[in-house]
């Protein structure tokens, strides 16, 4: 009789233990390293997971109260992150035409459709580390291009003047 009760109980406990184990696996993913493109392409899979992304700070820092939106460009794909304002140093280099941005490593929760931000795809940052500093980008003026510019400008103006003169004479 005891054996008859024990066996189903044992099976039930094993089943519960197995279920608990699978549930825990579904919730605790650890931190997954991914590129911005991988996150966007597999948004359903990474949804609400803890992720790590490394890339260049670009565009603007849009401060909203104690938080801010930043954009990180990873191999040409940009993704936005919602960070605490204090995470970003005031002298951070933000990438654009005249400057390459700081390379940062961001860890946080990835959202396919963030309930806090109207369904936007974003990352809520937990940590932000500086990997390497950005620097000004020099765009030197090419002397030969300047000469060609001025030559073409002179030719264009001369032809336009000749045309307008002809129009006036014909009238």
């Amino acid at each position: 009789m005891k054996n008859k009760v024990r066996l189903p109980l044992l099976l039930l406990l094993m089943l519960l233990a197995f279920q608990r184990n699978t549930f825990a696996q579904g919730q605790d993913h650890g931190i997954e390293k991914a590129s911005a493109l991988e996150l966007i392409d597999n948004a359903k899979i990474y949804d609400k997971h803890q992720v790590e992304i490394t890339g260049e700070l670009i565009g603007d820092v849009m401060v909203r109260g104690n938080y801010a939106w930043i954009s990180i460009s990873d191999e040409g794909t940009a993704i936005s992150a919602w960070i605490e304002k204090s995470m970003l140093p005031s002298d951070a280099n933000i990438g654009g035409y005249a400057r390459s941005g700081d390379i940062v490593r961001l860890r946080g929760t990835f959202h396919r459709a963030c309930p806090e931000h109207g369904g936007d795809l974003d990352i809520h940052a937990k940590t932000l580390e500086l990997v390497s500093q950005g620097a000004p980008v020099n765009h030197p003026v090419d002397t030969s291009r300047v000469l060609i510019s001025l030559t073409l400008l002179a030719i264009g103006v001369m032809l336009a003047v000749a045309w307008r003169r002809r129009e006036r004479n014909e009238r």
Partner: protein
Amino acid sequence: MKSSTRLDDIRIIVYFSGKILVGMSLIYWIPIFTALVSGEYKVMFDFILSFGLILSIGAGFTLLGKAVKRPSWTHGMVTAAVSWIMAMILAAFPNWLSGHYLSYLDCMFDVMSGLTTTGLIMIQDLDHISNGLNMWRHLLTFVGGQGIVVLALAIFVDGTGGSYGFYVGEGKDERLFPSVTHTVTSIWRISLLYLAIGTSLLWAAGIAIGLTPDRAFLHGLWVYMSAWSTGGFAPMSQSILYYHSAVYELLTFLFFMVGSFNFALHSAVIRGNRKELFRNVETLSFGTTMMMLSFIVGWALMKLKVYPGIGMLIRKGYYQLASAHTTTGFMTIYANQFANEWGNVGLVAMVVAMLIGGSACSTAGGFKGLRIGILFKAILQDTKRLLNPASAISIEKFHYHGERSLGDQQVRSAASIVLLYLVMFTAVVLATCAAGYPLMESVFEVASITGNVGLTIGVTSPSMPTILKYLYIFVMWAGRLEFMAILASIGFAASLFKRRRQ
């Protein structure tokens, strides 16, 4: 005699094409000034070089060509088609000099996409481009929305007799006033009035959402130019998602909705005739299709549980739908999210919205609401004829700046254009599938190209086959000019060939 007539025709077309290029050259000073103020001297010289080139070629054409006081309808049509191609080739030069493109073809693709207010892009590393180049991209889309021929007609008001052919050739057939010159200057006045209001509002919104005042101004100006022109270019690669702001989304939504309305409707409302807004067949047609498609998209997104709340569904679903229906192309989701998350029903609704498009004589593309309204009325009339006795006379009326009776000619004209769009759409979907892309993605992307929309599901990229790039450029051009100018050009070329053989 015959050969001298042929040469005269070509010289007249060369003359007016040159005039349009000279008109277009004047806008180069805006990016030159922007680059100067931003301290981007390399970019400034790139634009001076490009200005010199287009001015030389344009003025050279006017000297080689033959001026006439009243160009014929065919001259106008062929000039419109030719000058759009010339403008694409020449306006791509500063893009190429920027070093942000893999080939000159990619530059021309972006320029045609801008001028036709499509909004698809081939540019590399958009997030690092100069203010001068960003100004140029958005300026092209703003000017293209109004029309480059309309721009030239507005500048050279002194020599535009017989200019209706140019105007129609550029895909506009609605005259706001009896004179074409008066009409084109009014189009520009309306656009510049809205530009001032729209930029100011987006500037204020930009500062409120955390942009610095100078960045907020530039972003406001660029995004407004793109929204009003139903263009779809944005200063950053994330499009409107970049701003993460409901206010910014609401403002852009309002601007592209307004931009998709007929210029004649704007003119009527500005002159105090607000009733036209609610009675016009185009606004009724647009409202009806928008409502029906909203239900479909809403149902599809709800069924797939794409967004966790109704607020999010409205914000994301209807923004993309309105962006598609007005042929704008702004996005607040990533391109891949369409393919991976929206499902086939949602995507088909978007395809229908993109193909129908906005209003005639507006900056929008697609079949146009007017033609859909006319075809619907024609079906209604035919149904009534079937149900009524044979002796009964059925007259169908519609409101379009006054009550009008539906005539066979209007139905034929609307049906022809819609049919041409559908033939082109089908052919290019086949070509895209043949290049190896999946059917649904091909249908979505080609609807976007055909309707000059700019939403992408990921097909358009610098790595796509070269032949598809050429094909898409042709489709953007044909869709924007609504075939008339292209058919006229083919007819003109055929007549030249025929004369040569005789």
